[in-house]
C-alpha cells in the first residue's frame, strides 16, 4: 500500500501523517529532567525508572529517595497504601525485589513480611529475580500477535541468545513475553526498561539491540 505513509522515529511508534520526532512523541522535552526526590508530592510516586544500572545493595531509603518516600507517604491516609510505591522505589534502586527487600519494606511500613510477599507476588512488574541491564518485554497479546509478535519475540531470544526469562551471559538482556501493553495500534510493542519501542518487526530486532548497547 504505497500511499500509506509510515514513519517511526526511534521506534517511538508509527507517526503516520504526522511529522514528529522521537522526542515529540515520547514527550521527553516536555518532561525534561526528572528529580530523584520525586518533585512535587502529587507526582512523587510517578517514577520509578527501570534503570540500566542496578545496585542490589542500595539502602532503603537514603537522601533524595528518603525524601521521595516521605512525600509518597504524605499522599495516602494509610501506611499500607504506600506499599506499591515503596516496592516500586526499591525496585528502581535494586533492580528486583528480593526476600530481604520485602522484609525491609515491610519493616518500613509496619506490615508483616508475609503480607508484603503476598502483595509483591501478585504484581508481575516486580522482578523476583535479578534481570539484565535491559529488560525486554515483548507483547504477544492478540493485536500484536496477529501482526507477528511471536516472530518478534523469537528474534529477540535468538539475537540475545537467551531463553525466556533468562539473562544473557553479558548481563545485558533479559527477554520476557508480556501481556497487552496498550499500544495495540503500533504492533509489535516492546517495552524495554522505561521505554516503549513500537512498530517493531522481527527484522528490526538487531538494530534495536544495537541501539541499546550504544546507549549504555
Amino acid at each position, binding site marked *: 500500500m504505497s500511499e500509506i505513509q509510515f514513519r517511526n522515529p526511534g521506534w517511538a511508534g508509527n507517526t503516520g501523517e504526522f511529522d514528529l520526532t522521537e522526542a515529540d512523541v515520547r514527550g521527553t522535552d516536555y518532561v525534561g529532567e526528572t528529580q530523584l526526590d520525586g518533585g512535587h508530592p502529587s507526582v512523587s510516586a510517578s517514577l520509578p525508572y527501570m534503570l540500566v544500572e542496578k545496585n542490589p545493595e542500595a539502602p532503603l531509603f537514603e537522601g533524595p529517595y528518603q525524601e521521595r518516600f516521605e512525600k509518597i507517604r504524605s499522599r495516602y491516609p494509610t501506611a499500607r497504601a504506600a506499599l506499591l510505591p515503596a516496592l516500586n522505589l526499591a525496585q528502581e534502586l535494586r533492580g528486583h525485589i528480593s526476600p530481604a527487600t520485602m522484609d525491609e519494606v515491610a519493616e518500613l511500613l509496619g506490615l508483616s*513480611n508475609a503480607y508484603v510477599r503476598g502483595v509483591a507476588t*501478585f504484581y508481575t512488574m516486580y522482578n523476583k529475580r535479578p534481570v539484565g541491564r535491559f529488560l525486554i518485554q515483548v507483547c504477544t497479546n492478540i493485536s500484536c500477535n496477529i501482526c507477528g509478535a511471536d516472530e518478534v519475540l523469537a528474534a529477540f531470544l535468538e539475537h540475545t541468545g537467551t531463553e525466556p526469562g533468562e539473562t544473557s551471559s553479558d548481563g545485558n538482556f533479559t527477554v520476557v513475553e508480556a501481556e497487552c501493553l496498550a499500544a495495540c495500534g503500533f504492533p509489535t510493542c516492546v517495552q524495554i526498561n522505561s521505554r516503549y519501542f513500537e512498530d517493531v518487526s522481527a527484522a528490526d530486532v538487531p538494530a534495536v539491540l544495537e541501539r541499546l548497547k550504544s546507549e549504555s
Partner: protein
Amino acid sequence: MPDNGPRADTVTLTIDGREVTVPRGTSLLHAAETQGTTVPHYCYHPGLSAPAQCRICLVEVEGAPKLQPSCVTMAEDGQVVHTDSPAARRMRQGVLEFYLVNHPLDCPICDMSGECKLQDYVFDEGREHGRGREPKRVFGRDDFGGDVLYYGDRCVMCTRCVRFMDEVARDSRLTVVERGSRAVIDTFFDSGLEGASFAGNVVDICPVGALVSKDFLHKARAWDLDHTPSVCTSCSQGCNIELHTRDNLVQRLMPRENQEVNGHWMCDYGRANYEWMNRPGRLEAPMAGRGGERRAVDWKTALEHLFVRLQGGTGDVMVVGSAEASNEGLAALGWVGEAVGTVSARVFRSPRADDEEPLPGYPLLVRRRDLAPNVDGAGLLGFERAGDDTGAGGLEAVAGHDGIVLVLGDGLADQDVRFGASAGLFVYLGSFDSPAARNADYVLPVTTFAEEEGSFVNAQGRVQRFWPGLRPPGSARPAWLVLGALAAALQGGRTPASAAEVFAGLEAGCAAFAGLSYDAIGESGVRLEAVHG
C-alpha cells in the same frame, strides 16, 4: 417501608418452599441452616470474615439476575430462595469439577479423608466422571513450621487459614503468594508458624487436607476416631474440646465450639498437651501397707479396711487436693476429711505461668496463667492455694503431720520419701505412683479426667462437664466414686452411683453451686454468676 416506624427485627422468607423467620442480618446460608439445609461452603467460616470467593454456596434468589453467594447475601422479607434448583445444582457441580481438575485425589494417604468437605460434596453432588485430560498441576508439600504441614495440591484456596492468622491471631504469617492458578498459601520464605501460639487452628479450619498436623500425620483415619466432648485441662480457661481416641489412646485434641469460652479455637499449648493421658506405668490396683510391706489388694478389701481405720481415726485431718481433680472428686475428698475429724489444712498446689496469652481477635480466649483446669473449683470448694508458681513447696506442715493425711491428685514430685512418715493415717489417691507415697497406708488408683465423668470450674466461673473418652487402666476408679463411697459409709448416706449424684450433694452442701443441676450444665457449661443472678 410504608411508615417510619422501627423495622421489625426479624424477616420472613421462603427457602426451598418452606417459610423461615430469622433475625434481620442473617445470611441466607444461616437462614437455610435453621430449616436443616446445609449449603455447601469452603471459604465461609463462622469465626472469620466472608470473602465469598469459593463460589460453591451460590443459591438462586428469585428476581436476582445471577446466583447469589449465600454466605454474604442477607435474608430479606419475602425473598424466595432455592438452594437446590437446577441452576444452583449445576453451578455446584461445575465448581466441584473445577476443584478436581488439579486435585491429586490422594485420599488414601490424606489425613483429612473421611472428614473432608471436598470428598463429601463431590460424593453428594459431583460428576460421575471427570473430564480433565490434562496432566495435573503439582505444587508439592511445604513445611509451614510449628506443627503445620501444607500440601499445596490439595488446597482449595479458600484462604480460611490466611484470614485466621490475620483476623483472629492478628499475626499475618500466612499469605496467598502469586495469583491465578499459580496461587498457593505460603509463609515468608523460610520463616513460618514456629512459635505462634494459636496456629494449630488453621489445621482444624482447613476444609480439605491441605493443612495437616505433623503430630497427627498418618496416625489415624478420621472414621476410626471416637469423639468425646471434654474440657482442656492445660489452663484455667477451660476451652471446650473433643478427645479424639482410637485403641484407647487419645490421638489428638480438637476445639469444640463454645462462643462464651473459646469460640472455635484453642491454643497450641493445650492442643499439644495430651500424651500424658496415654502414659503407661499407671497405678492399676489399690495397695495397702507402708514401704516394703505394700501389697496389692482388691477394692473391697481396701475400702473396708480404710473405712475401719478412718472411723477409728481421730483429730486433725490435712487434705491435699489438686486443681486437676474434678469438683466431684474434690468435694468428696472434703466430705471424707470432715467426716473423720477437724480439717486443719485443705490445700492444693498448681503451677502458674509468668504471663497470660490472649487470642487478640477473640479476646474471650486467653491462655491463662493458671496451668490447671480447676483452680476456681478448688477455691470454691474451700481449698487454699499452697506452694509456689512452679506448683512446688508449701506442704511442710502436711509432710510432718501426725494426724490423718489425705492426698488426691497431687503427684508430690517435690516431696521426699519422708513425706507422711509420721502420719497416723496416710491415704494417697493418684493415677501415678510417687516416691513420696511410699509412706502411704493406702495407695488408691484413680482415673484421669479423660477416663471419667465430672466437672471443672474455669476462670470465668463457668461450670463445665467432661465425659470419659478412655477406658481406665486396671481397676482405677474415679476419685468421686472412691471417696463418695467412703464419705457415704462414714456419714451413713447413700453411695453415689454417678458423678451427677455427687454433684447433687455438692450443690446441696456448697453455696457457690446452689441451684445448679448437673443436667443443666450440659455440653456447653453454665456460669455460676448466671445461676445466682
